[in-house]
């Protein structure tokens, strides 16, 4: 048994080292002497690599750990993630293309750059950047947790949780610091293929001992029918919570900076459209079918599951041979690593370019900018690892409840700024501030007025304040904004 654990660890380490070799090689080829090269791969990612890098960024350890855990705990209602997040694809096509064109024209590197340009306000830029970084750090920390759990379970506790975090941090830092966005894109593409293949194989492994798909459902009908409809075994997916998912999940995921910036990396519209298509395709494969089967099978076959997130590694460990299990967990770590890389890059981009160098970007040389950016990558990885040392029971719940709800507060100012010429900086500033304050106040006080979750109140108050305050300041001169952002629409 001991030998199998060591061999499993070796397979995962070999995989991580192979990926590092690819990163070193492609990092050398890609030009990253300046921040645009380092963070946005020179805005030139092709239509072949764009969909794969989108899948790699979007499909994280949630695919292997979080989603089976959610299906295991709540049943088939978790399919709401596919039904709601499919609309991220339309956001990429409509909002993503619009912001890509503006970014190319005015050299935006982040959502903060856009907010500064559109509203002429440092406050909005800093607030949006802080929301983006803080929420991404929560998400990032959960990715480290996922990777560590995967490594710990599959090696039979040979690698302790803390050491597993350290391994994840070291490899992610090497990938990002050596490769930058240019190096990571190719790595992403490989990891996307590996993770998609891995999850399908994992589903096959899980279904077989349950007696096949039909038998899986027949057993569930007899033993756990509460898993087969809303609101689920823990009665979480009530009517109000279900509706909320259709606002939180699409906005929350699209405003994740590591997803949002993908639109700025696209070489052209074709690449952007392909990246949009990759979202529902991967969602259907991973969340629509594979993880649903794994979660239900886990419920029937596993007797002693500590954290729900360990369902998949335990299934692989118990119902496949050690070699297949190790390969699948390498794929799981692959999913985690690719998302971690994207998150590290984008968080350090926002921290260094939008917060530390706020209005001094032009005064700093490219070389100095790169040093600052790399130091920030290092610091953020360490902070996320420290957060990860105290893991929650379920990854998905933390990210959905904290990160996605926080990031969705950027949506009103962003979308109204693109399509409503009367959207004013005063409205955006008040709306965003009210949204964030209400969201976290209700979370801390643990209140849900009229039975609606705090997020709903925060999001709609954000929109209402944004519109009302903008209308109050409508008479203020807005010619420059109209000329810059809306002149083409008039023609």
């Amino acid at each position, binding site marked *: 048994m001991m030998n199998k654990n060591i061999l499993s660890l070796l397979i995962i380490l070999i995989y991580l080292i192979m990926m590092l070799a690819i990163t070193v090689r492609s990092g050398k080829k890609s030009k990253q002497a300046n921040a645009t090269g380092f963070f946005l791969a020179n805005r030139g990612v092709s239509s072949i690599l764009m969909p794969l890098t989108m899948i790699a960024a979007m499909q994280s350890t949630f695919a292997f750990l979080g989603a089976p855990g959610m299906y295991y705990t709540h049943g088939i209602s978790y399919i709401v993630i*596919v039904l*709601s997040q499919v609309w991220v694809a339309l956001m990429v096509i409509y909002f993503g293309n619009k912001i890509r064109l503006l970014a190319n024209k005015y050299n935006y590197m982040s959502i903060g750059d856009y907010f500064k340009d559109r509203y002429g306000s440092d406050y909005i830029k800093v607030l949006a950047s802080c929301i983006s970084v803080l929420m991404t750090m929560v998400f990032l920390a959960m990715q480290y947790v996922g990777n560590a759990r995967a490594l710990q379970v599959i090696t039979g506790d040979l690698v302790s949780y803390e050491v597993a975090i350290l391994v994840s941090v070291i490899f992610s830092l090497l990938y990002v610091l050596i490769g930058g966005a240019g190096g990571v894109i190719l790595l992403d593409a490989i990891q996307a293929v590996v993770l998609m293949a891995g999850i399908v194989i994992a589903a096959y492994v899980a279904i077989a001992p349950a007696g096949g798909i039909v038998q899986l459902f027949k057993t569930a009908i007899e033993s756990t*029918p509460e898993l*087969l*409809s*809303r*609101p689920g075994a823990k009665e979480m997916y009530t009517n109000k919570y279900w*509706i909320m998912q259709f606002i939180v999940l699409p906005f929350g995921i699209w405003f994740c900076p590591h997803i949002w910036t993908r639109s700025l990396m696209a070489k052209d*519209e074709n690449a952007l459209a392909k990246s949009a*298509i990759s979202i529902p395709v991967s969602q259907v494969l991973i969340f629509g079918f594979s993880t649903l089967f794994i979660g239900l099978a886990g419920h029937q076959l596993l007797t002693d599951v500590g954290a729900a997130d360990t369902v998949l590694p335990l299934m692989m460990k118990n119902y496949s041979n050690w070699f297949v299990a190790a390969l699948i967990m390498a794929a799981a770590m692959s999913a985690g690593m690719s998302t971690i890389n994207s998150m590290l890059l984008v968080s350090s981009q926002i921290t260094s370019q939008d917060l530390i160098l706020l209005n001094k970007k032009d005064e700093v040389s490219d070389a100095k900018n790169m040093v600052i950016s790399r130091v920030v990558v290092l610091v953020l990885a360490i902070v996320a690892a420290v957060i990860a040392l105290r893991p929650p029971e379920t990854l998905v719940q933390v990210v959905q409840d904290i990160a996605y709800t926080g990031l969705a507060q950027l949506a009103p100012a962003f979308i109204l700024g693109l399509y409503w010429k009367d959207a004013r900086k005063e409205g955006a500033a008040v709306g965003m501030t009210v949204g964030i304050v209400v969201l976290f106040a209700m979370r801390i006080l643990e209140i849900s007025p009229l039975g609606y979750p705090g997020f709903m109140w925060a999001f709609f108050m954000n929109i209402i304040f944004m519109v009302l305050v903008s209308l109050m300041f409508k008479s203020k001169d807005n010619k420059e904004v109209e000329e810059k952002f809306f002149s083409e629409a008039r023609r």
Partner: protein
Amino acid sequence: MNHKLILIIFVILLLLGMVPFSFTATPEPYIFGWLPFPLLYWWILMIINLIFVLWVAKKFTDSVKRRRNDE
């Protein structure tokens, strides 16, 4: 791109998923004796959504191509 048509279809599909219909609160009837009806409904909706997104993406790239040719 026919934005109006896309918007109408989008709203219908969004509502079909977003509205917590009462039939999704019970697993019965079991189609073929094993497939819970809510899951069948969500799977069908999921595939229709996917086809719709593929269609919108195609329309988008076609319109970009047409615009480039016109220029």
